């Protein structure tokens, strides 16, 4: 199970798009995984042949768990068994064993000892073992309040829908097996996403010594140029000014390598590639910052196409793993609606976040003349472990410079 962001701990295989024997090449999408934040398409980074699938659809496993084996050229097919599945860190869940008739059933995990002997039907007990339902939390609706099969199934469904709450309560990770008939994302992303954002932003503020810089940028040239360009284009091809911002940041950061990369294990790791994470807010709340790859090398039109596609897929929840995990620097833009200044919180393990406020018309002195100009506040939140304020200031200035020559973007 790949890590699709530093804040991801577990993932659920929603769907396998390949089967054993299928040839795959680097970049192919092989599976759909539900993280607590979104539904992500998983790419492979190794060409070869799918040898076997280890984690079936519907199963939730911790990051790092072997989910499938890819055989590269020359390797012989592995024997089908035994399959090593790393167990979750502290599983309280019992071994799954469907009891045979006339055998004593395995008693499912009961996290808190119930005060009374459980009233549960034999069938419900068997189903509870299969679904690994914590019976202490199941309300019985059968005769005399006994737990029936329907009660267990209801509880299993509820447990699957609210794993975040379970985890928060420090209950052993419920490695709940989803009913195979329903592979669709059943996790409530809004609850889960809130928790994930909370964890990752708290970590950022706890670990990252942020420093903040801000500067005004005259947007008159950029906006005028964009308007004239858009005039030439059919509506479907028009670009938003966000694209200019993304490209400026990407070009500028090439000269400030200490802003582009990750802080991992007490040291900075620079990234040659510039993958710009774009903070995209969801309509019902929540935030995802997937990456547009190699923004510094792409023409504006392509970045715009990428951005449109990304926004669409964020909202449709079909992101790819590389888009979620790969951002080397993040841009947040509050757009025309918001306020003038945003001081962002760095998305760990990245080391910088560039923020743009809304464009407002302001008096602007230039060459001894005062005029009304569209002005935007550009800000930088950067990790002081990786860079210093002086370089941060130069970085912001470089972004400004690129925005003054939009035709060169």
């Amino acid at each position, binding site marked *: 199970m790949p890590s699709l962001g530093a804040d991801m701990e577990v993932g659920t295989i929603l769907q396998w798009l390949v089967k054993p024997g299928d040839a795959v090449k680097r970049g192919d999408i092989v599976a759909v995984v539900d993280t607590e934040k979104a539904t992500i398409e998983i790419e492979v980074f190794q060409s070869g042949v799918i040898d076997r699938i280890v984690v079936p659809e519907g199963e939730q496993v911790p990051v790092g768990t072997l989910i499938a084996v890819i055989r590269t050229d020359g390797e012989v097919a592995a024997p089908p068994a035994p399959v090593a599945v790393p167990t979750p860190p502290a599983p309280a869940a019992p071994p799954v064993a469907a009891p045979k*008739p006339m055998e004593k059933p395995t008693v499912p995990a009961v996290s808190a000892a119930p005060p009374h002997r459980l009233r549960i*039907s*034999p*069938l419900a*007990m*068997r189903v509870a073992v299969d679904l690994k339902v914590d019976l202490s939390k199941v309300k019985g*609706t*059968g005769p005399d309040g006994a737990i029936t*099969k*329907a009660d267990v199934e209801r509880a299993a469904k509820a447990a699957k829908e609210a794993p975040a709450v379970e985890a928060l309560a420090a209950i052993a990770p419920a490695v709940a097996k989803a009913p195979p008939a329903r592979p669709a994302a059943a996790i409530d992303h809004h609850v889960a996403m809130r928790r994930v954002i909370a964890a990752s932003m708290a970590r950022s503020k706890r670990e990252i010594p942020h420093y903040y810089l801000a500067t005004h940028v005259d947007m008159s040239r950029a906006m005028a140029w964009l308007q004239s360009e858009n005039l030439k284009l059919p509506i479907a091809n028009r670009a938003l000014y966000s694209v200019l911002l993304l490209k400026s940041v990407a070009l500028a950061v090439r000269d400030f390598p200490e802003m582009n990369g990750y802080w991992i294990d007490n040291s900075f790791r620079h990234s040659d590639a510039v993958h710009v994470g774009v903070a995209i807010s969801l309509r019902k709340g929540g935030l995802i910052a997937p990456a547009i790859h190699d923004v510094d090398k792409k023409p504006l039109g392509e970045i715009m196409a990428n951005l449109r596609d990304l926004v669409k897929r964020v909202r449709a929840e079909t992101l790819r793993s590389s888009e979620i995990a790969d951002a080397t620097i993040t841009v947040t833009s509050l757009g025309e609606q918001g306020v003038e200044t945003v001081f962002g919180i760095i998305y760990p393990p990245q080391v910088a976040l560039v923020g743009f406020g809304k464009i407002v018309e302001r008096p602007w002195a230039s060459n001894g003349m005062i005029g009304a100009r569209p002005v935007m506040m550009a800000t930088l939140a950067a990790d002081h472990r990786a860079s210093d304020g002086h370089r941060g200031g130069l970085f912001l200035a470089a972004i400004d410079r690129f925005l003054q020559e939009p035709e060169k973007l």
Partner: protein
Amino acid sequence: MGAGAGADKVRVLGKGALVNTAARAARITYREAMRQAIREALQRDPRVFLMGEDVGKYGGCFAVSKGLLDEFGPERIRDTPLSESAFVGAGIGAAMGGMRPIVEIMTVNFSLLALDQILNNAATILHMSGGQFNIPLVIRMTTGAGRQLAAQHSHSLEGWYAHIPGIKVLTPATIEDARGMLWTALEDPDPVLIFEHQTLYNMEGELPADAGPVDIERARVRRPGTDISLISYGGSLHKVMEAATQLAAAGINAEVIDLRVLRPLDTATIIDSVTRTHRAIIIDEGWRSGSISAEVSARIMEGAFYELDVPVARICSAEVPMPYAKHLEDAALPQVSAIVEAARSLTGSNG
């Protein structure tokens, strides 16, 4: 009286569920079906004869053998003294001697006078003779309540007989089984007891002209369902069918199992049904304690414990001598409303 109304209800049910409606089917009562079965046996096999109290001149206490004396003569339709032990014993002797006797006992209550013959002789001689003597005897008797015949004539003791190894116990509940079970029973080398519920004789239904012998081994699913298994036999079966119809209207899809044969029990059909529905009610007109319903419940426990989502329930007769007064008799017997209520409770649909 209650019997007429009951028969009407049964007839309606019989149309849809219980009777084969082949093209050349004829409408016929349970009593006539039984009579046809006896007549056919008498015609097909010269070793067959019928004997019992009032089976000849009177035509049978429940008029099953009416007309047979004229047709087959006193040698083969034999009135007997009022001595169950004597004529059942005579039947056993005749069977040992190579005949195929059909012995009619007026009601199950009176059969107890012949219990020594049935248990200590009929059921046991094959064993005690070291396998030398089979007893190919068929004993027919009326069982059950519902016609205000009170404690003298109304008990349901077939479950007792099902306790005895060495005999078979049949409870035909449909026209087809009334018509078809007798011949198969006569073919059996060992004693077979046929219990005819007194409320069924007037039940009408369609019987195909080519109806013939039926098996006496298997239970039947009379109504397939998914939510609960209602397991019954004999006279109660029709109350259960009515209950299943009412339950269906309430959205509960009940499966109805007609046991047909109480010994040997068709455990496989019972377990199969409960494995699908996960719930079971046994409806048995016998008294609860030590009843056939207890045996069925035990077998479900043994074979399908891990399929059970609720405890097995039983609806039996009140443990009293059967009252004469109509309302008391009704109160003592399993009724449709009780079956419906129990099924709703077990399926969690009672509120």
